């Protein structure tokens, strides 16, 4: 790689403070928005009085729920939200009214001056509450008078018979807590009317396209009258993958007042916007035959998922569908549910729906290995599904370097020499996982491409890449520029990426499900290959050489054997333009038709899966119960790394987030439904002092369908972190922790129990 191309495309502008995030944008005459929020977990709205607020200095408009009566939701099957509560509030902190005023202070003061009369209703705050026969119903407007958003029950193979044939069957319950993303940039939106009835929304989102659709629905506007632009985003981790009240209210208030309106949530409000990790109450029964073959899994998971659906229907499926990976399971049964409760709504957080079951599964695999007298790595290696195979629930595995990942991670960490051999209080643990590279079936069922990219070559030699996807810091713009510049043999700095602007860029579904590299990457390759073809044709004519004998390199199209025989890239563009007109080409990506062996199975299939193995080394202070994670080795099968530094960064960030969830993070609530810790000080996240040394190992065996062989890296590496740490704690001091996070209280309690029972 050219050394200049090893720097991230947008690195320096961020490092120098020049990169523009939504809150850095300002407009003349801009108004500021603020919300009035519910103090109750569940209540009927009897009356809203906004007269005092409207009369206040600087206040230009106030919206309440009935101003935006059309329900929306990111999933077509669950349109259950309103930007402002319509007649019922369903969690503490829910938006009830929105104000636009000349200053933020005036908007906040007016929001406080709004008077709402409520009839307080009993709240649903646990799985038991939600399923009780006399349970209050969170969504009374639904046809089904139940708090079950979605229940999924599936069986593949024969689970009861399979368990009977097993030599060892272990059954346990596990609990994984809810947690939240904490992106440093809070949700921010700036909407401006164009004076002709259109509205332009600049917003910190991962899903410009889905947001575009939701805005048109709620504002009852034509799609072509709404423009969504995503400036730089101060990260998402899944937390900006829904349409938010900030976005809808900014747009509605801009249309109402005819002036630009900006909303920025304060840090406390982000904890109410949430859409974070679903808590999960799990039970797992895992069995292996006497020869050490893992055959059967019986699993259940139930989640008190909060007041609105968000992606919750998908979560219920994700809890179950990835369980067979990366093993050769024959029999799988799962029963999962996502429930409505009166909490801030859960949604997708890095490793969506797969993190919780992976904790239960990988700890259970460790227990099973021990029961069979096998070392955890050997046991796992003996049970892997091979490349080019299919899981018992019909997931198509193409490339898999799972075995290499386990070998690399255990070798680098010296696992064999440490496991079961370190002094008391010190231990190592292993866990593995797999994750998808985008969902094969889109959210809105249709036959359209999931991603399109347009590549346009200018006579100057500059190439513009237009993509609707969302770079949220993960580096997808660099990925696109890198693929195109490599195909065309030009420097990275000669590529401009224009992304995430619904007026200018072709549709991409957005930055979620680890889909961007695989899908937008393939679309970009297709577009640049088409450009290559016409440039080759022009160069071949000019140089009087067969196009097969020509290569793209160093900004020239040259003979592979005689470098003196060449044409400048810009010259080739000019020549091709004489024949073809302006050189603009499009590429698109539609996943292959997969996952049809079982009817109804549209959640889980992906064009490829990444694989990860991790070893954690911990030190447990058995006096204080404090767990110190010293080091984590992560070997990740990313297919091929388009940019090794950025890939490592994704691994490091994933492992970091896993360490937070393993040791510190928990979204918890008072019995009233009030959030216990809605600030960065109270909701503990790791600083540099709690973060272990992270050793990334890139395993690059390539994927046959990935762009230049690449697969995902943004989410998969978080999956094994929590169980690897749990297994290391067991190795250190003999306690099996089945509830995260592994706080000193939990460690001490388990140690006490161990001492009593021996």
């Amino acid at each position, binding site marked *: 790689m050219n050394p200049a191309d090893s720097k991230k495309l947008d690195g320096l502008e961020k490092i120098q403070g020049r990169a523009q995030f939504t809150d850095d944008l300002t407009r003349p005459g801009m108004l500021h928005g603020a919300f009035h929020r519910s103090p109750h977990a569940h209540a009927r709205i009897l009356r809203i009085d906004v007269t*005092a607020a409207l009369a206040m200095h600087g206040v230009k408009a106030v919206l309440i729920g009935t101003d935006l009566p059309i329900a929306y939701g990111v999933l077509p099957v669950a349109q259950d939200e309103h930007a402002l509560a319509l007649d019922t509030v369903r969690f503490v902190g829910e938006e009830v009214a929105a104000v636009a005023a000349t200053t933020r202070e005036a908007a906040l*003061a007016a929001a406080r*001056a709004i008077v709402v009369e409520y009839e307080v209703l009993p709240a649903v705050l646990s799985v038991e509450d939600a399923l009780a026969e006399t349970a209050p119903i969170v969504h009374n407007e639904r046809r089904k008078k139940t708090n079950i958003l979605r229940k999924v029950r599936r069986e593949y193979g024969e689970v009861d018979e399979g368990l009977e044939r097993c030599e060892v069957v272990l059954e346990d319950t596990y609990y994984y807590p809810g947690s939240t993303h904490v992106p440093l940039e809070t949700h921010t939106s700036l909407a401006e009317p164009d004076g002709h009835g259109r509205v332009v929304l600049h917003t910190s989102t991962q899903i410009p396209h889905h947001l575009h659709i939701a805005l048109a629905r709620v504002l009852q506007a034509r799609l072509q009258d709404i423009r969504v632009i995503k400036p730089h985003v101060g*990260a998402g981790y899944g937390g900006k993958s829904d349409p938010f009240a900030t976005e809808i209210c900014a747009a509605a208030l801009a249309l109402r007042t005819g002036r630009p309106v900006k909303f920025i949530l304060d840090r406390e409000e982000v904890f109410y916007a949430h859409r974070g990790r679903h808590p999960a109450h799990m039970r797992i029964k895992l069995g292996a035959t006497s020869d050490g073959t893992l055959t059967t899994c019986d699993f259940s998971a139930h989640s008190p998922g909060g007041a609105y659906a968000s992606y919750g229907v998908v979560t219920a499926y994700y809890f179950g569908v990835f369980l067979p990976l990366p093993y050769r399971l024959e029999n799988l049964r799962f029963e999962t549910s996502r429930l409505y409760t009166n909490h801030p709504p859960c949604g997708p957080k890095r490793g969506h729906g797969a993190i919780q079951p992976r904790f239960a599964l990988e700890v259970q695999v460790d227990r099973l290995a021990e029961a069979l007298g096998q070392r955890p790595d050997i046991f796992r290696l003996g049970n892997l599904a091979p490349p080019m195979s299919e899981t018992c629930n019909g997931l198509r595995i193409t490339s898999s370097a799972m075995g290499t990942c386990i070998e690399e991670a255990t070798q680098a960490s010296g696992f064999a020499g440490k496991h079961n051999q370190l002094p008391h209080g010190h231990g190592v643990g292993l866990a593995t996982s797999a994750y998808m590279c985008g969902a094969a079936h889109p959210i809105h069922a249709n036959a359209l491409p999931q991603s399109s990219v347009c590549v346009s070559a200018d006579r100057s030699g500059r190439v513009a890449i237009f993509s609707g996807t969302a770079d949220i810091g993960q580096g997808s713009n660099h990925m696109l520029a890198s693929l195109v510049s490599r195909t065309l043999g030009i420097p990275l700095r000669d590529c401009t990426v224009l992304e995430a602007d619904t007026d200018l860029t072709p549709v991409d579904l957005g930055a979620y499900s680890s889909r961007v590299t695989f899908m937008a990457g393939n679309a970009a390759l297709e577009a640049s290959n088409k450009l290559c073809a016409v440039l080759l044709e022009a160069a071949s004519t000019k140089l009087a050489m067969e196009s097969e004998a020509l290569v793209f390199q160093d900004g020239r199209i040259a003979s592979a054997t005689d470098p003196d025989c060449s044409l400048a890239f810009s010259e080739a563009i000019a020549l091709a333009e004489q024949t073809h007109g302006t050189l603009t080409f499009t590429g698109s990506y539609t996943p292959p038709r997969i996952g049809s062996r079982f009817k109804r199975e549209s959640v889980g299939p992906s064009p490829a899966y990444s694989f990860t193995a991790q070893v954690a080394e911990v030190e447990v202070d058995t006096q204080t119960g404090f767990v110190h994670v010293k080091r984590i080795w992560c070997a990740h099968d990313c297919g091929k790394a388009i940019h090794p*530094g950025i890939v490592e960064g994704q691994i*490091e960030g994933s492992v970091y987030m896993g360490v937070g969830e393993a040791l510190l993070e928990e979204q918890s609530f008072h019995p009233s439904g009030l959030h216990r810790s809605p600030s*960065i000080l109270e909701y503990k996240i790791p600083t540099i002092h709690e973060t272990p040394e992270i050793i990334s190992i890139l395993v690059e065996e390539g994927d046959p369908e990935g762009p230049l062989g690449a697969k995902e890296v943004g989410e998969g590496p978080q999956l094994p972190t929590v169980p690897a740490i749990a297994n290391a704690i067991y190795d250190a001091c003999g306690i099996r922790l089945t509830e995260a996070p592994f706080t000193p209280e939990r460690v001490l309690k388990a140690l006490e129990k161990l001492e009593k029972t021996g």
Partner: protein
Amino acid sequence: MNKPLSSTPSLLEFEVNGEPVQLLASPQDSLLDCLRDQLGLTGSKHGCDVGDCGACTVLLDGTPQLSCITLALEAKGTHLTTVEGLSQESTPHPVQAAFDEKVAAQCGYCTPGFVVALASLFETNPSATPEDVRRCLGSNICRCTGYTKIIEAAELARRRLQGLDT
């Protein structure tokens, strides 16, 4: 009745990134809001507004300060440096160059705060040790990188500034 917020602006004179600046600031204005809204210096960010995250870090007379919990009027008569003042576009500060080389910025929202804090450390303690660097970085939160590349970048900058590395 809700009274309008009482605030009589007063004149604030200070030096920002080497330039003398005069502006009107109200008693309740934060230094961060003043920099962003009045001077257009948007490199310093709102992350928490209560001093928890470090994304708003600036240098007040060379000392790192959380501008979100500093009143603008406290900056009277000081020399203030923001991330924008550390470099010109063509010549990034050595800390910035190291961040660029090590790919230490992902979303980039926390990055200016880290860069400013490190630049100050190396300025005030030319013989800073790796342990000093870790202690310094403990004041800032990054949610993307796991701090790994930030530590690598800081270490590269430290070694270069101390003449241990080129």
